[in-house]
């Protein structure tokens, strides 16, 4: 790990310094390590200070003071699944639009017409989902 990092750093010394394509990710990796240390530290520190007394009642799931009825992990409304599927479709669409938007300067009119056709197809699907009631809640 460390030799690799230093090899990459050596590369920057000769190559482009500030905005080398891979180099930019190293601080993110560094910060990831630091961010991981925070939850771990936070969960261990408290252990040395507090008093813990566990009772049966205290460890019950909270249900406004009444003993919990049944298990919480029950069947889930189908609406959530529909939303998840619709999200997938539209999210993929958005991902396709990202690179198009970045190079829009070069694509010009051609790019605009292409994108309009692309969006039109999706709007048809969106209209269908709306009319079928997939977007209605209740």
């Amino acid at each position, binding site marked *: 790990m460390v030799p690799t*990092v*230093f090899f990459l*750093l050596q590369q*920057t*010394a000769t190559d482009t*310094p*500030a*905005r080398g*394509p891979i180099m*930019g*990710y190293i*601080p*993110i990796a*560094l*910060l*990831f390590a*630091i*961010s*991981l240390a*925070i*939850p*771990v530290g*936070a969960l261990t*520190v*408290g252990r040395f200070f*507090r*008093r*813990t007394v*566990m009772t049966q009642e*205290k*460890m*019950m*799931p*909270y*249900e406004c003071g009444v003993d*919990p009825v049944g*298990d*919480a*992990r029950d069947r889930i409304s189908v*609406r*959530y699944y529909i*939303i*998840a599927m619709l*999200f997938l479709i*539209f*999210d993929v669409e*958005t991902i396709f639009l*990202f690179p198009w*938007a*970045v190079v*829009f300067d070069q694509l010009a009119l051609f*790019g*605009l017409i292409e*994108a*309009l056709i692309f*969006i039109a197809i999706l709007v048809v699907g*969106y209209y269908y989902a709306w009319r079928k009631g997939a*977007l209605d*809640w*209740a």
Partner: protein
Amino acid sequence: MPPFEQLLEWSVKIAVGFIILMTMVAYLSLIERRLLAFIQMRYGPNRVGPFGLFQPIADGLKFIFKEDLIPLDADKFLYVMAPALSLVPALMTFTLIPVGGEVTLPLLDRPIALHITSINVGILAVLAMTGMGVHGIVLAGYASNNKYSLLGGLRSSAQLVSYELAMSLSIIGVLIQAGSLDLVTIVERQGGGWGLGWHVFWFQPLGFFVFLVSMIAETNRAPFDLPEAESELVAGFHTEYSSMKFAMFFIAEYANMVTAAAMATTLFLGGWQGPGVTRWPWLGPVYFLLKVAFFLFLYVWLRASSPRLRYDQLMDFGWKFLLPLALVNVVLSATLALWF
């Protein structure tokens, strides 16, 4: 640049950024309570230290000393993992946000750029990291085996997913104008013209509106705070959480607020751009913080003055109003970009 020096520069920047972010998170919680109190004609927390300034420290100490409960039927592994899963991405996002241009420091012979890192897919990385935060909330709801938590987790999964669509679609207009995914480039393109180059004025007011609304929904804040809805779901996904685990959700929420405000500033309000930054580069971070503070004030203001939406209204608003609006914005900004 020698490797060691580069590594040192990153470490210093990360440390400074981290400290600033944590201070902002701690004091945002205090400022929010004080502001809410003032809006409701109360005093708010003013006992600990002058003007209650030490309140966040007292809160932190209290979190450490509280009992750490794990409910009997909880999925232990996921129950412990969930707060970390929402905290880690929340803390990571700020690496990519530029808080200023290039400044010169005494004793250094080269200019220092006031951003920790800049990668050519900056926006995608930020979107990916903020998207990761959903998992923490959903898993917290599932793992606690509490009916309120499960409902809160489910609601938030559907809500976050719906508003994420509108949010990423509203960014596309900005990308067309800036022609880059790199946040540093996006900010640089918005300079000049006495602020008229900011994307909120330069053909993206609609995109700004969509981004603003979905950013509030993404951070689970009022009027979109359905996942935690105190009065109906007790506290939603973190009902069963106590002690440091609750604190981690709390920090994650506030860090997300700061990040979302910073993203809105970077994408639409010209980031660190402002009058005089080219001559005095140190004004950059000041402008940036002022703009972020504006958004943070907006968050508190909205919480104090707007009622919570009903769930079907929330989904309707996201899918039948914001999403079409964002699509219209994409087409509009592409057409406009062709002319200008």
